[in-house]
């Protein structure tokens, strides 16, 4: 569908809503770039994202609009604010100085390229699959109802499997965030870990030699046992030393 056709199909309330939302978007975007205070920039971003949400509603994409508000304005901007606060709000950034040489030129060129691409794609008709994504979806029911339906039918197993992904995320975060030695639950008794420091002073001298040999014997006896036995023995030994 070409651009003039879209505009012709729009009613007056649609056009007004679009114009308002577009102004909100653009003003917000300008605010992100031009505000001196980073917190204000982040808040201006919220404005842009709300404007985009309105545009989504205008396009009958209610679900996308909701997700836009929940995910972007709700979560991502808050994340931005966290980062800004953590780094320090008052830190002066020299915005006008180029961090990388020639980044403005590159940004301009890339931006123009993306714009050209968008225009090109909007004008080209691609031969694509069976369903059209430009028109309204088939069948009765709202957008959200259809999404719900496909989550619980066509995409049931991906939906369920996502839970495994969440488990991975939790386990992974705990494993990586937990620093060693901070009351970490250990498979060994703590005293055992203390005694066997890997970077202890070297054992030297004849006395140490003898002790070495003794330990070697003990080690030999240990290897002779089965591992399961050794594991249990470790527990028993830990209990004794405790």
């Amino acid at each position: 569908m070409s651009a003039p056709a879209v505009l012709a199909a729009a009613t007056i309330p649609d056009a007004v809503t679009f114009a308002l939302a577009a102004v909100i978007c653009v003003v917000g975007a300008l605010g992100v770039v031009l505000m001196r205070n980073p917190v204000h920039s982040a808040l201006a971003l919220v404005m842009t994202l709300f404007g985009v949400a309105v545009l989504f509603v205008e396009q009958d994409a209610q679900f996308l609009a909701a997700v836009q508000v929940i995910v972007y304005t709700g979560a991502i901007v808050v994340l931005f604010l966290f980062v800004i606060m953590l780094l320090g709000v008052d830190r002066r950034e020299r915005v006008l100085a180029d961090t990388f040489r020639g980044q403005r030129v590159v940004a301009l060129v890339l931006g123009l390229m993306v714009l050209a691409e968008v225009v090109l794609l909007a004008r080209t008709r691609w031969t694509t699959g069976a369903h059209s994504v430009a028109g309204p979806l088939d069948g009765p029911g709202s957008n959200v109802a259809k999404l719900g339906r496909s989550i619980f039918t066509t995409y049931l197993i991906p939906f369920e499997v996502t839970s495994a992904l969440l488990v991975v995320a939790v386990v992974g975060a705990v494993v990586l965030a937990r620093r060693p030695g901070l009351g970490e639950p250990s498979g060994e008794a703590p005293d055992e870990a203390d005694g066997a420091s890997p970077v202890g002073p070297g054992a030297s001298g004849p006395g140490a030699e003898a002790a070495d040999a003794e330990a070697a014997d003990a080690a030999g006896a240990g290897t002779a046992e089965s591992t399961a036995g050794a594991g249990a023995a470790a527990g028993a030994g830990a209990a004794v030393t405790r």
Partner: protein
Amino acid sequence: MIGSAHLAGVVGARLVAASGITIPHIDYTAILPELILLGGMLLLLAAAALSPRPLPTEAYATATVGLATASLVTSLVLWRDVTDRGPLTTVAHSIDVDGFALFFLVTISCILVVAPMLGAGYLRRERISGPEYYVLALISGSGAMFMASANDLVLVFLGLEILSIPLYVLAGLDHRREASGEAAMKYFVLGAFSSAIFVYGIALTYGATGSTNLAEIGAFLARNVVTSDGVLIGGLGLLLVGFAFKVAAVPFHMWTPDVYQGAPTPATGFMAAMAKAGGFAALLRVFVSTFPSLRSSWQPVVFVLAALTLLVGAVVAVVQSDVKRMLSYSSINHAGFVLLGLQAATARGVAGSLYYVFTYGLVVLGSFAVVSLVGGSGEDRHDLARFRGLGRRQPVIATAFAVLLLAQAGAPFTTGFFAKLYVVEAAAAAHSYLLAAIAMGSAAIAAFFYLRVVFLMFSDAGAAAPAGEGATARAVEAARPAGIEPAGAAGGSWVPEPSGAVATMVAPVTRSAAADARSVSSGVVALDVSGEPPVATSPWILAGLGICVAVTVVFGVWPQPLVEFAHQATLLF
């Protein structure tokens, strides 16, 4: 049990009257292997959290081996079922349980059976306690299984993530070494990047074909001729990039050496085996079974990818002096061989790839296990020189390593020989003579660095020199902090006993003896050279290595059953 569920309806759907939504029928027996792993993983986590005393790592290892065995048995039962009655598809055609999927399910289960055995000793030595290693391995395995049986690009993606994210964490499991954290970070950032590319590929493919279901995409492409196929080819290309990253194909291999080197060694072996199994499962299914009509478009790309992967992997591995880096480049080289089967895009080629992935999985697990043993505690000594004279100090370990290396080199009477033979033969049969020649050439180059390690291990030249100065070395060594093992001492083998192991061994002794041993274990523990293995091996790792070597040799001498299996798997695609 599986039979009855199968009869109950392959594509059965029942109506939920109240909601008006037709909930698809779920054949739970068909996804039982995945469910066993996931459920078992949750139980393991719960057990670890609820148990009043911290459980030893071996307890978790035992549980993991048990779970993996259960999933192996289930997969084999399903296999019998599928060969009798034909492939199943369930949950709204999202999951295909066919021969191809089951071959990978068996492969993945085998990897999961062996990996905990090979990892337990290392975790104890490095004092990495808790169930994390096993839990992450189980989730990762279930992700790979979902990838293998996925019939929907969305599920392929989720499987890919469930496979990869635990691998990122496993790479960073060792908090004490900075390299480990760096590896995790690198793998995570690049992995997330490649996942994003993969999702973009799915989006474009969906846009071009109107479905994410592989069967529906295949049907659409069979019915229609896509004249202006820019979007579709773009999507296909991005999918290939995403897969190529996961299986470490050149030029998307940059992360591999650093990550493999930095990660804890048993995790590296697991990573190499599991990421390749899952990645190739989905890669082969998506390209060979869904996009055969676009073969003329993707075959040349895979050709270049395979050729580069074969050559770069082999050539760069030659100049590595670090064994872990060498093995990681060699794993890139092996990925090239598997791509050979994809490039052929014939039943023979796919069967060859399947056989290759199975055999490589066990070989690479075993190889990295040996490296983890020889590397000693702290993991900073992986240079080739340490393998000098290992055959004398550690005949059993060295022999096992030699067998595994020879298998990687493709020596006869090992599975590696047949694996290489089948893919190269398939490439030649598909008239990709140039690629077959490149593969042979790279195998010859690769043989050099594998055999170099074998010769190092069994050469006496290096071992003789330190033997004479044994006494001096002894004195010098005694003054060194524990954790530094001298290279190739024949006159006296010096081993920093992992402190955990020492404590284990002296556990039954009295308190004072234990205290003595503890004070000693902070220094260097020396063992006599009466043929006693000085490197701290455990029955676990010996059993794991035994399985790897046995599979390598048995199926190398008598490859018929495994070849049959792979061949059948491609027939029941």
